[in-house]
């Protein structure tokens, strides 16, 4: 039977409950919520004056009521040391989600640490160290001393290059401006670490180098643009599942035609119809299904290309659109360079593209018309959106550039109903000192780890065992190296610190690796680590981030972090304090002095030291002001305050469509972190201003037609097609029978680390699924739910078979990054020229392991598509 909670009622929120602003910490959309808390021995009542909603709760409430919450939105947590009831429910006033809760965000309360209700007891409560053959609790002082001594010893022998780091760079949980600054100031300020990688890729690089190189930051529009567009072209993305409430709240109204009034009001003097949608994806997703249900099949063009051939399609579209005279000549002349060069270099005929992509000439022509054919003499407004199908697909750099070419050529950046944006994974929250010393291409850190380089590995909120490429080989080598250190540590009494450090260093000289894992739970890679440092997550600390339309909000601390856990920024600060002490004790005064400036007492100190002092527009942003702006916040970059107006000369008043410019936002155009030249090891943070004036933000970037280049002109890029770019991919395709396409699913998206202890999710997905065409299943004698092995020359992994009649023959789709079957095991080490992984183009063979396990037998294998009526 399906999992049921057997809950028949919930405590009612009393009228005087405390209310905190919350932004969902899982995905990029950042839906607004409120956390209500009240004493555990009290409850509200059904009478209107007895509950926070002021309504009669003895009556059935209507659809979309704010006056209801599901059992997953409820829990009992600690607040200031005392048990309190908590309800975390969607905020109807938040413009992002308008009260919608996703299957992930609406479980935030249930996914909180609660000893009273036994939820998320996997959370780390104490620093843990390898002692007597297993991980054992210790004090912060002891754990940090060990980490500092080993790290300092490695630096002494190998320099900063001996310190390998894996660190989040994003917002939301396991990130945010406070924590990226804390880690950034440690590794890029106090140290100059260049062997560093980001949580989901094996190097320290942008996933969207091309668009940035062209002068176009990747989060350049606003969510309202999806309501205003004539056409939405979405590439390698599945927004219904991975930007759920952005899609439901902003795309659907345009597909249904219910945003027409808004279009007429904001964009008079041109005809408006419900949106058309072009979806480029080899797989038929639920996004395709729902677009067809809402817009009608005649307004949805699903271009199910051959995997990895997007680039050829975009080049052909550019060529054909230019031939038809549908480009925006004035915009190209005023705001761009190198159009003619790129057009000539990328020339691709419809027939050539059809041959490569598997599409028909007619389909490509139709796509071109929907993108760019003028509507009654007016320019068609097309919004371009892309994500991992492109980013983690074939020839990332050129393909990204080719899509931006198309958006620029049709004048669709910086204008209402346009934009060329990544859809995103986590929220953003990047604030760090310059990373220029890392270089480009950046070091391929996974390969360094495999090759035996470096002596110490600091891991912050990353789990390579689940989420890297070439994961099988990575795990084998990582275990080998860290086991050497474990054995060395076991050879001496733990309490003899000098002997312990000497033993560890001895093992490191032999090729061993000392591993320090900072996380909120024991991770898979943590199995190999020697120290775990327990971190706090969103809501257990104050945390700022911005979403996919650069909307910055503050999630307020509404509960205590478990046990001794601390915000990452403070862990970084305390580690810096300990490194300073150890270097000073050793007489290395100059090195010790580099670790000054970490005397933060709170996450707000880190915010004021980092974002407030260093980010463009940061001078206007404080916790007090963000609190006052609630779940709507403002859109970065800030340009001033409502009371004073925009401060910098030439900036706008924030009116829609107004020309934006001036020194305040120049640097921040395009989301690249821009640091002022202030020293990074400045002293204590200044006292935050107390005012709560409203912050003025920026609705769209490049609204003035000036881009992030010295002359303000975006640059077209030459992006010739060159087949499967990453080394070894074509050979793998030739050798193995099945495409192992991969991605996410609705239940689990940026939430698997907690979901692995959530009954609802693990009941539905005890193993990752692999979608297969029934005829392929028959050939391999497979039944639904059977556990299969997916294997190739890179490694092997497992999944449960989900029959999928809409799948193409020999093209499967496997759930990515799942704890009970890691797709990355079968992904090759092949990357692009800037060390971007290529997960999507993976080929392997499949064979049966066993019939459906017990945990799978009761599950449904029916189509996930909403039936058309």
């Amino acid at each position: 039977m399906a999992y049921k909670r057997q809950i028949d009622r919930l405590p009612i929120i009393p009228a005087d409950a405390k209310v905190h602003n919350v932004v969902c910490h899982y995905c990029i959309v950042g839906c607004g919520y409120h956390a209500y808390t009240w004493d555990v021995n009290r409850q509200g009542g059904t009478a209107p004056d007895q509950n926070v909603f002021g309504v009669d709760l003895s009556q059935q409430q209507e659809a979309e009521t704010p006056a209801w919450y599901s059992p997953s939105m409820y829990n009992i947590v600690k607040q200031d040391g005392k048990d309190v009831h908590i309800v975390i429910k969607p905020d109807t006033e938040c413009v992002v989600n308008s009260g919608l809760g996703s299957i992930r965000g609406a479980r935030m309360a249930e996914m909180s640490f609660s000893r009273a209700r036994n939820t998320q007891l996997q959370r780390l409560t104490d620093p843990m160290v390898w002692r007597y053959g297993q991980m054992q609790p210790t004090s912060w002082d002891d754990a940090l001393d060990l980490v500092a001594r080993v790290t300092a010893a490695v630096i002494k022998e190998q320099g900063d290059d001996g310190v390998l780091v894996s660190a989040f760079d994003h917002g939301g949980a396991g990130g945010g401006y406070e924590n990226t600054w804390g880690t950034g100031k440690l590794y890029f300020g106090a140290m100059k670490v260049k062997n560093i990688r980001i949580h989901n890729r094996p190097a320290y690089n942008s996933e969207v180098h091309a668009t940035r190189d062209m002068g176009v930051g990747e989060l350049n529009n606003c969510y309202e643009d999806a309501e205003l567009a004539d056409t939405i072209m979405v590439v390698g993305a599945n927004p219904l599942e991975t930007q759920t409430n952005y899609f439901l709240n902003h795309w659907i109204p345009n597909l249904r035609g219910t945003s027409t009034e808004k279009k007429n009001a904001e964009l008079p003097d041109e005809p408006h119809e419900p949106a058309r949608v072009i979806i480029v994806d080899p797989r038929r997703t639920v996004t395709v299904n729902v677009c067809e249900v809402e817009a009608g099949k005649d307004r949805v063009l699903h271009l199910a290309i051959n995997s990895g051939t997007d680039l050829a399609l975009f080049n052909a579209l550019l060529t054909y659109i230019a031939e038809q005279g549908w480009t925006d000549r004035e915009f190209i002349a005023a705001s761009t360079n190198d159009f003619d060069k790129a057009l000539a270099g990328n020339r691709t005929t419809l027939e050539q593209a059809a041959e490569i992509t598997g599409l028909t000439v007619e389909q490509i022509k139709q796509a071109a018309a929907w993108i760019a054919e003028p509507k009654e003499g007016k320019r068609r407004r097309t919004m371009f959106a892309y994500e991992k199908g492109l980013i983690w697909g074939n020839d990332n750099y050129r393909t990204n550039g080719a899509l931006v070419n198309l958006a620029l050529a049709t004048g669709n950046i910086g204008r209402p109903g346009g934009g060329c944006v990544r859809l995103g994974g986590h929220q953003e929250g990047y604030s760090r000192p310059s990373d220029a010393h890392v270089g480009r291409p950046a070091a391929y850190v996974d390969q360094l780890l495999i090759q035996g380089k470096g002596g110490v590995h600091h891991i912050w909120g990353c789990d390579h065992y689940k989420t890297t490429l070439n994961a099988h080989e990575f795990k084998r080598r990582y275990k080998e190296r860290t086991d050497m250190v474990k054995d060395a540590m076991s050879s001496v009494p733990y309490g003899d610190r000098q002997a312990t450090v000497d033993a560890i260093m001895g093992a490191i000289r032999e090729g061993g690796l000392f591993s320090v894992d900072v996380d909120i739970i024991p991770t898979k890679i943590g199995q190999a680590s020697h120290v775990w440092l327990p971190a706090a997550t969103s809501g257990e600390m104050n945390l700022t981030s911005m979403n996919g339309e650069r909307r910055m909000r503050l999630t307020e601390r509404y509960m205590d972090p478990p046990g001794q856990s601390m915000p990452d920024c403070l862990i970084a600060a305390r580690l810096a304090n300990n490194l300073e002490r150890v270097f000073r004790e050793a007489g290395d005064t100059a090195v010790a002095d580099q670790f000054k400036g970490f005397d933060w007492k709170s996450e707000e100190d880190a915010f004021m030291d980092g974002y407030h002092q260093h980010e463009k527009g940061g001078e206007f942003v404080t916790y007090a002001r963000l609190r006052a702006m609630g779940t709507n916040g403002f859109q970065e970059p800030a340009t001033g305050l409502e009371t004073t107006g925009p401060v910098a000369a030439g900036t706008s008043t924030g009116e829609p469509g107004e020309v934006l410019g001036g020194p305040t936002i120049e640097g921040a155009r395009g989301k690249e972190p821009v640091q002022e030249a202030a020293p990074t090891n400045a002293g204590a943070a200044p006292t935050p201003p107390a005012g709560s004036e409203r912050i003025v933000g920026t609705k769209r970037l490049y609204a003035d037609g000036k881009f992030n280049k010295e002359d303000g002109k975006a640059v077209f890029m030459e992006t010739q097609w060159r087949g499967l770019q990453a080394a070894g991919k074509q050979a793998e395709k030739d050798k193995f029978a099945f495409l192992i396409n991969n991605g996410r699913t609705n239940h689990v998206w940026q939430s698997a680390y907690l979901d692995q202890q959530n009954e609802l999710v693990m009941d539905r997905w005890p193993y990752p699924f692999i979608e297969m065409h029934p005829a392929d299943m028959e050939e391999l004698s497979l039944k639904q739910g059977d556990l299969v092995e997916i294997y190739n020359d890179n490694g092997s992994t497992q999944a449960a078979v989900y029959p999928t009649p809409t799948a193409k023959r020999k093209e499967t789709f496997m759930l990515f990054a799942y704890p009970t079957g890691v797709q990355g095991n079968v992904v090759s080490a092949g990357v692009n020229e800037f060390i971007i992984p290529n997960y999507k183009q993976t080929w392997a063979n499949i064979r049966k392991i066993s019939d459906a396990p017990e945990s799978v037998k009761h599950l449904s294998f029916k189509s996930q598509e909403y039936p058309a009526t």
Partner: protein
Amino acid sequence: MERCNRLVDVGRRQFLRGSAFAAAGAAAAVSLPVTPARAAPGLALVEYPSNRLANIADLKPNEPLDVGYPDDNAPGVLLKLGTRVEGGAGPDGDIVGFSTVCPHKGFPLNYNAEDRTLNCPGHYSRFDCEAGGLQIWGQATQNLPQYQLRVDKKGDIFAEGLDELIYGRLSNVL
């Protein structure tokens, strides 16, 4: 059960525009027994009524019968699936009952006889009637509330409990 049919007939687009559900609920105007506030000692579970919803003879295979449980303001369906399922009632173990208010945002679910699923026109969630109301795909953070059913010797079908919280009420019995 006229009201329930009307709920379904209203159609999803209208539901998305406003509070039709509230109006429909109010129109039913069913008065419910009020539990005395202070008389009874506090109990750990709500007291579910044992309500006769139908007789087996009223059910046709794979045709949903609109019902209300635990009261008429809580629309649901009874289904005779035709194949024995875990948790199924009746001599053939194939009778099941579910709330038809989507546990995500409270829109009325539609039955799709072809694959025996309940489907939400609001945000496309799908629940499998043959798998205990398992959410096949969707936005809800719970599987579909299912009735605990008892069938007596005469073939009368009684609902006597639910296994999840119904949308729009903080106590399953109001």
